[in-house]
């Protein structure tokens, strides 16, 4: 039998919206921006809108954005962004159907595994979190995932970026809590790259900016968009309507508002600097009408995410979503179920940046153990995306000729040749026989994750910064700390050498 050309691999994909459906969402979003307008609480942004000949109601700060301006801005915004790690050597394309997982950002608590309780994180937790993220292979990016409680609140945003840059070379998803923080954060990023020019050419960080639903960009978030665009730092637009609370209750209605808010953000970025990178992202949620909470693990939340990502793709923009996280309070079945479902659906939707790993309790809590478990989930999602490959031709008939008398394929060269490429091997999921599992102490997934976290933190050595660079970054951070009345930085055992 002669070999035929190998067949292409089908990329597994899920889409929820038809083309006319997407077009109507965009059309209604543009109508909303033109007729109802959107509140912009930032003088500089309002000035840009006026200069672009848009109607601005001076009293309320409401801007009526013309359809033509949005369309013009969609022509100047890049369709993909390339991030580089701290060394500048490894690149990651954020665009097309590339999928990159990163930990959920800005948790205000950490799950203490020993006591099964939540507490405020401190510097040592932040360092552990970054080092663990660095070691986990399926998290392509790190995020400034914890807000450290042992530094003044006013510098917590700069500080978490500083710790991230010190302890991992992975690109970083971050953002500002205060307008004043942008300058030192930019300085940290420029120092790592050896100058402003290199920093702008090889982005290392994405900055998140969230509009306030419904239909408002606040002073702080506008400023982040303006500052980032001028510095050519990618802005990730994080609309976050809550169905029936801060956005229409129907999924379709929320998608219209989401699209309108994100498009307005995109326009602000392009007015500040045409060609500035923008990521069409979000963290909307189904709003629980009983509890008044915002479940990120609700299937409807995931459906909104997948749908707006489809809108973003239709507009040829890089996409982001908060998926692959859970509302569970401990590492139980709910944590695995919601995270697994979300991560797999995000991958199938081809969302470029998927933030959420490690997160629980409505985006408020990070767990190192969950981060390790979620890394494994992300690994499974990546395997799924690689699809079913046509490795050789014929696919199988030739394997039976020589082994007619054999009853298994274990010793077959074909098995040895392909098994590692075709199959993945979990670090945590239990595949032992019952007896072997019992022998090992009848551990749960969470127990095994805790073991793995301990061993990684003991053994993993992230790529180090040079002593000079370390000193430069520490000087910037110390200066910022002094500005907030903190005489010296908290002890960082891993970096204080």
């Amino acid at each position, binding site marked *: 039998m002669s070999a035929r050309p190998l067949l292409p691999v089908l990329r597994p994909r899920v889409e929820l919206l038809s083309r006319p459906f997407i077009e109507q969402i965009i059309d209604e979003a543009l109508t909303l921006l033109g007729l109802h307008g959107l509140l912009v609480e930032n003088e500089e942004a309002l000035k840009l809108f006026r200069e672009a000949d848009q109607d601005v109601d001076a009293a309320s700060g409401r801007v009526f954005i013309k359809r033509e301006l949005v369309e013009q801005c969609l022509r100047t915004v890049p369709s993909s962004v390339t991030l580089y790690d701290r060394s500048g050597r490894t690149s990651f394309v954020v665009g097309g159907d590339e999928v990159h997982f990163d930990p959920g950002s800005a948790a*205000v*608590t950490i799950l203490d595994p020993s006591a099964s309780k939540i507490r*405020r994180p401190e510097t040592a937790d932040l360092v552990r979190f970054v080092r663990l993220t660095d070691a986990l292979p399926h998290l392509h990016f790190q995020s400034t995932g914890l*807000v450290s409680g042992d530094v003044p*609140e006013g510098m917590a945003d700069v500080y978490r970026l500083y710790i991230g840059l010190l302890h991992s070379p992975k690109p970083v998803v971050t953002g500002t809590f205060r307008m004043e923080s942008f300058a030192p954060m930019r300085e940290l990023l420029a120092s790592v790259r050896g100058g402003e020019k290199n920093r702008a050419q090889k982005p290392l960080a994405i900055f998140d900016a969230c509009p*306030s639903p419904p239909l408002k960009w606040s002073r702080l978030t506008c400023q982040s968009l303006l500052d980032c665009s001028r510095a050519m730092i990618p802005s990730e637009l994080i609309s976050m309507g*809550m169905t*029936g*609370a*801060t956005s229409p*209750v129907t999924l379709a209605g929320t998608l219209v508002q989401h699209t309108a808010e994100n498009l307005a953000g995109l326009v602000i970025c392009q007015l500040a600097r045409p060609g500035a990178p923008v990521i069409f992202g979000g963290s909307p949620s189904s709003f629980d*009408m*009983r509890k*008044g*909470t915002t479940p990120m693990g609700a299937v409807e939340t995931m459906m909104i995410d997948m749908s707006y990502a489809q809108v973003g793709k239709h507009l040829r923009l890089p996409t982001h979503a908060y998926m692959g996280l859970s509302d569970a309070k401990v590492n139980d079945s709910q944590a695995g179920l919601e995270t697994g479902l979300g991560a797999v659906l995000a991958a199938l939707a081809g969302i470029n940046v998927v933030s959420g790993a490690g997160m629980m309790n*409505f985006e*408020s809590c990070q767990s190192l153990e969950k981060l390790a478990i979620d890394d494994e989930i992300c690994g499974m999602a990546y395997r799924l995306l690689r699809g079913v490959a046509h490795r050789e031709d014929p696919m199988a008939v030739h394997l039976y000729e020589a082994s007619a008398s054999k009853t298994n394929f274990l010793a077959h060269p074909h098995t040895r040749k392909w098994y590692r490429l075709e199959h993945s091997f979990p670090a945590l999921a239990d595949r032992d026989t019952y007896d072997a599992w019992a022998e090992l102490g009848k551990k749960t997934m969470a127990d095994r994750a805790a073991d793995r976290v301990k061993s990684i933190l003991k053994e993993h050595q992230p790529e180090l910064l040079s002593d000079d660079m370390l000193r430069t970054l520490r000087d910037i951070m110390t200066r910022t700390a002094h500005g907030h009345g903190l005489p010296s930085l908290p002890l960082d055992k891993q970096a204080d050498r």
Partner: protein
Amino acid sequence: MKHDELLKQMTDAVVNGQAAEAETLARKGVSLGIAPGELIDRGFVPGIRRAGELWEAGDYFLPELVSSAEAMKVAMGVLQPELEKTASREGGRPKSRVVIGTVEGDIHDIGKNLVAALLAANGFEVYDLGASVHLENFLDKALEVDADVIGLSALLTTTMLNQRRFLDLLRSKGHRSRFKVLVGGAPVTEQWASDIGADGYAENAVAAVALCRRVLGGGRP
């Protein structure tokens, strides 16, 4: 009673969350010369009570509960001025005053709005200061309106600390015993309320109404 049918319609309008209907019925009651106190006590209040019960039983979700509160608020908007006319003649009955807001640094106000709406619907005089309210403003307003209760909401663990700061502020100014201070919000617990020396915590808006009544000595608002 001859107005029983009308009063029942008022109750139903609140239970069903029909604001326009509630307003029409309130005006009708006034035009028929029924005492506003009776319209409130026997017409509308049983409606908001029933909505609360349906919530407690798990039959009502937030959209129903909020609609009922809205209908109640609209009816009270009609009846309150009438009540004041009567009250000025008869001496009236004082209402308990609540100053409420989300603490500074925190812009989350959905939960606080629910509590404010239900308190107003249940006859409290509510001063809603909005979101991200400076701690001094809570105190200034409470002194200005001679409030009975101050309610502090916080959604974030970072801003929750401002609830403690407010109690410190009250104590430092020597006003602690003058007001009942209640705290709420997603990260807030009974334990937290007790740790910071607040007078109470409620898990949801319906419970907050009961809590207000309780700390004020169980009397009517």
